[in-house]
């Protein structure tokens, strides 16, 4: 039982890793830069975007969509079985809204 669990976990890890590698390879091919260079730049880009989000700004890209941090207000949730009321605190959540162009492509 634990072995199968471990196998699954490892599979998942390797899978995502492969996915990421593929992604970086494709990116480096398109931009004609080295794969390691691409990895570094992706990290930089993510860092820049994070700073933007932390400033409360949103990243909007034509043809892709908007990546934006939204504040979710605090709310009271009720457990339907026990009736216990819980106050869920407010949070900041990163949301993505695809552009209409992308939506069109989906159809």
């Amino acid at each position, binding site marked *: 039982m634990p072995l199968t669990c471990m196998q699954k976990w490892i599979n998942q890890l390797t899978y995502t890793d492969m996915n990421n590698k593929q992604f970086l390879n494709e990116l480096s091919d398109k931009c004609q830069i080295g794969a390691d260079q691409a990895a570094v730049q992706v990290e930089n880009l993510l860092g820049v975007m994070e700073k933007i989000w*932390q*400033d409360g700004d949103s990243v*909007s*890209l034509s*043809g892709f969509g908007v990546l934006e941090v939204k504040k979710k207000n*605090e*709310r009271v949730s009720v457990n339907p079985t026990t009736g216990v009321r819980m106050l869920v605190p407010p949070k*900041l959540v*990163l949301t993505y809204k695809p552009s209409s162009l992308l939506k069109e*492509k989906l159809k």
Partner: protein
Amino acid sequence: MDNKINLSQLAERLAQEGGMSKAAAEQFVKNFFDIISQRVLEEGLVKVKGLGTFKLIQMEDRESVNVNTGERFTIDGHQKISFVPDADLKERINKPFAAFDTVQISEDQAKELAKMDAETEQADSAPEDKKPVEEPKKSAKEKRLAQKQAKKAEEARKRAQKQQEKDSEKVVDTPTVKEITQKKGTRFLLKFLIGLLSTVLVIGLILFVMWPVIGNSVLDIVEKNLNKAKTEMVTDSLQNAAPAEVILPEKPAETPVEAPVAKPAETPAETQSAKPAESPAVKPAQPSQQPAAQPAAKTKQTQPQASVKYPAVKLNSQDEAKDLSEFTAADVVNFSIEGLLTTHTLQKGETLTVVALKYYGSKKLWPYIAKYNNISDPEKLQPGIVLRVPVLRAK
């Protein structure tokens, strides 16, 4: 705040950060998002490390009601792109609100808050600008529903405020840095504890799983140790018991030999050595017998001697039997006989143990004397026998 950063702005920032030309940065960012959108459309799933997961979700057909006309119509199934941020990124984004935890609300609190909210809500609902626009469109039911929702939201907000006020002087919107750091400390501690607990659990699990392999060997080792301990205990008790028993029989052995038995034994010995004058003085209870015995023949003289010796020997035999059982283990082996020490004439009432005690200081060494003198039956010794006492040397 609330600025929209577009491609060129983003590229500019990236160019500053990554040390590449602006054109290249722009191209890079464009490609980055192009690949994501392309892959989502093709494969339905893109995981970008450090950002999150984009996923294509199939929405089924569903029925809906036109709010204005009340007509039913179906919304056709379509595909939707969902985005789930990475756990790390999610946490970092939510940093300003990380200090808040989900809190349970008690009944009383809820009622109180509801009352307060009902009062404030009447005042609040009027100046809201969205509602008047929507209201004419909605039916009475719809209106009530909206009001209820608004009420709920207000309630929640009020509750949150109250909770925060109660907890401390928290600022409603953004907690101070101090509070965050404090909460972070406790969170870290909690995480640490959870980590510790989980490692212990994992170790337990591993042990549980590997038990068939490890368990048998462990059990074997434990069993061996137990057996060892048992045997040690047994030998210990044997060795300890021997000297302990020796001390006990000493008294009953010596006293009967020397006091009650030796005295009657002495008297016939004295009579033998022709000292009748002393015996009545020493033993006033026996003179009647001894004078009678003295004139009698030698046969008669030997009779009291025999009768006297008998109890002594009997007692000694018991003593020796005990000694025999005791010395078997260790004592005999420890010494070797090396030559003659002296000779000893056995007196009446004396046994080999007494001789051994006299020359060696230990009763237990009598078998050496017996061996040295080739005595096969130490119980049947006649007084007057000359014993050769050997020199003993510890091996």
